[in-house]
């Protein structure tokens, strides 16, 4: 995904905001609340270390790229009813596919299946949203990794290609977090 910005909300619970006109494209990021041990993050950290990257800490998030005649109200319903367990997880909703600064992380990596690869989780989310009475949308799913560790872009690029992404089926982006 290309660099994009525009965080709209970040919250774990509370009433949904007033729906804005449909803009057609939202990125939802769901991750564990900081209080919980992130087992996937530990696993990713180990994989990166095996690939030669001395990552101090990794937090993992799930990305959902929703495209279609949606408004923010729809997206909040989708997140609360389907994509996020608000007891253990928190979420952020961005306009379009965005990468935003993430406190305490030096790097943010997004890994997505290439458009030509069938995204079965995305298909399942589509069906579930339809069952929730939502308008028909296209959904692609990806992973985000917030990586703390001193490394250069080239080093990280190589390590991610060897551990968190397979360039045969994935494309990924690296962004320095502020």
């Amino acid at each position: 995904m290309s660099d994009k910005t525009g965080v709209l909300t970040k919250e774990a619970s509370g009433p949904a905001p007033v729906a804005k006109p449909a803009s057609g494209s939202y990125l939802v990021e769901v991750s564990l609340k900081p209080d919980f041990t992130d087992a996937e993050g530990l696993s990713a950290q180990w994989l990166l270390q095996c690939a030669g990257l001395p990552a101090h800490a990794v937090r993992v998030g799930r990305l959902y790229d929703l495209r279609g005649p949606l408004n923010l109200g729809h997206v909040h319903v989708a997140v609360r009813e389907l994509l996020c367990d608000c007891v253990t997880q928190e979420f952020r909703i961005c306009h379009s596919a965005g990468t935003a600064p993430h406190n305490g992380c030096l790097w943010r990596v997004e890994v997505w299946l290439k458009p030509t690869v069938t995204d079965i989780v995305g298909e399942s989310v589509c069906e579930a949203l339809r069952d929730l009475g939502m308008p028909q949308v296209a959904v692609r799913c990806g992973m985000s990794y917030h990586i703390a560790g001193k490394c250069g872009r080239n080093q990280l690029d190589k390590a991610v290609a060897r551990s968190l992404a397979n360039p045969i089926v994935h494309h990924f982006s690296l962004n320095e977090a502020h």
Partner: protein
Amino acid sequence: MPTPTAALPQTPETVAFRSLHPQDLKTLNARHGWSLNLAELVAIQAHFQTLKREPTLAELETLAQTWSEHCKHKTFTSPIRYNDGKKTRLIKSLIEETIFKATKQLNRPWCLSVFKDNAGIVAFGPKWALAFKVETHNHPSAIEPYGGAETGVGGVIRDVMGAGLGAKPVLNTDVFCFAPPDYDGPLPEGALHPRRVLNGVVSGVRDYGNRMGIPTAGGGLWFDPDYRLNPLVFCGTVGLLPVWAVRKEVKAGDLIVAAGGRTGRDGLHGATFSSAALEGAQLSAVQIGHALNEKKLLDALLIARDKKLYRGVTDCGAGGFSSAIGELAAECGARVRLEAARLKVSDLAPWEIWLSESQERMVFAVPPRSLKAFAEAFASEACETAVLGEFTSTGRLEVTHGGTSVVDLDMRFLHDGLPRQERSAVWASQKPAPSKAPTHKKSLAQILEECLGHLNVCSREWIVRQYDHEVQGGTVIKPLQGIRHDGPGDACVIWPHAATGNPSDHQGFAVSHGLNPAYGKIDPYRMALACADEALRNLLCVGADISRAAFLDNFCWASPDDPAQLGALVRAAEGCRDAALGFGVPFISGKDSLFNQTRDVSGKDLAIPGTLLISALAPVADIRKALTMDIKGPGNALYLVGWTAEELGGSLFHQICGRCAGGKEVRPAGTSGTSIAAGASCTAPAVDTRTALATFKAVQAALAKGLVLSAHDLSDGGLGVAAAEMCFTGEFGASLDLDEVPRRAPIYSDEVLLFSESASRILFEVSPEQEAAFLKALRGVPAKRVGTTVANPVLKVAGLDGRIALESALCDLKSAWQLSLPRRLG
């Protein structure tokens, strides 16, 4: 969701083929990745010259798929001129003269379908049958381990769903061969590290099996650095079906109905790679499985099967619709209209629809009167169907798109037109390695700990715990056993009551595996026999009825164009034949994966070790009497059944202490106490099937009478490893006396007695009250009491000189066994 279809009828792409020069044929073949040889290309050329027209691309692709090694098993069915080092003879068809021959000769009435359906099918009681299939998915798993393994599991599950009129999967198995996860040698550009392959493959098998609700309860793992560029992934499935559903037939007039997932540009092989029009064409070779779609397809299939709404079914595997419809229509003919297929994307060319390997699709032969009910049954499970055409009696495969002919081939040419190419094979037995004095000064305790921590022996709990082996509630003997549910097991035992719906029927079945490529490096013939022997003993140890056992073979080999490789393959196939005949156990299904070699960093071809997996299936009359391998209490006798000989070739002992040879025992200076097996024979273990079978029958009778508390087969690491595993799994110690080990020829080495890997041996725990009856049951069989179980958690071994040669705390032994894989994984 609307169905995208190809917008307009497209003119099929024809290929100027008839007048091509042989060199141009080869160039075209390479460009499209058809993997046809020149004789095959010339045969196709001659066929179309007779027809006086050019072939379409779809026709050439169909022929390439149908004539591929994957579909036609050309190496196993073509003539081979074989030199065994003494004389040369012609093998007309390796498969016919070895594996098929044994099965035909044994002619077991309970073998209901062998080598002709998608899976082998055997009877399971009067009402039911079991379908069993094991397949490999090696190349996709090397490129994209997660997706490759997922689709491997999905494919073999569909094979069982397409066996007979469809079986309900009740067990998944997985066997992997990888390079060590801490491999630190060079890898060529683009090759994934073995650790990553291991992680991805395990995740793929886990996610697909778990999401389908099928227990993954059996398997194995083998490490060898020579698998670093060609990992092997064997996926197996056992399914249950009623006996009436074993036979399938297709009648002219039946409708061709596709069900399940939609057709996309997934898994197109050669032609796709060459298509400049497709962005990221390489991706299409990789498929991502969709377990939930397959689950819906399975549930719908079972509803339709039980309502008898179709007459035939098969899955779309390699070649997609082309091979599925081509196989079902082989005896009659088919007319297919591709525009009726449900598509993922609208821009597919007709040949792409025809050859796509999109996952989770099956093809049915549905009588027209049943179509409405059939479609309703599938719709009730949210599963899409599409009528693609009908079966005919023309003997032709006729495929159109929008009224335009895409494929028009004679079924006889398609299925019987393949020219057979004779290959050369040479087998030269290895000369003994030069004799050298061993340098190791390890104690028996150190060697035993290293054996237990060896990657090919150590605990697989890290993998097993990721799989759901309990789903369906019928896993009686689980992959991890013992008082803490973390010890090894010999075989899994499944009680398919959820599938039969009859909890008062206590019949179950056991599945085991035999695999040891290290023996194959010395002699593939002995490897085959040893694998069959081990698989049978594993079944025996859990209480299965081996008189009703059935084998499956899976050969993974390097290029058969190399006469030495093919010679080894012939040796292994002959070993399979002799094992089947010797043990009276038929092969019911099999598969081969050849050309497993890739250029390494030095530019040379790195071939995998010749690998044969023998999987075995047998009924367990009463699952309540199934046996586990952990020691059950103190004060019980330990009996070793079977002869021990100096057979350390390919053994763990040689891998740990260095390979030694020469035939004479060497005692290096400075060693005392235990003798050193320096001169121990480097031959791989031999199997005397006659003695072994007599032993197994006696053992089975003893087990049936309930005379045994626990049983464990001796394989890698021999008696030492087997005894240690039984002890730490049950948390009782044992005292062994090596002087009591049954042997025909004198053995003067504690190491040989403790670590020899002679075949056909089992260690039993027998209570004092049952000893007399046990010995009576085993009269005439090589069996001796070699020790006693004790409460003290220590394994103690007395050497030939009467002194204690080994004394190890069980916690140390278990730690060595348990911590090895996690440590190597980092």
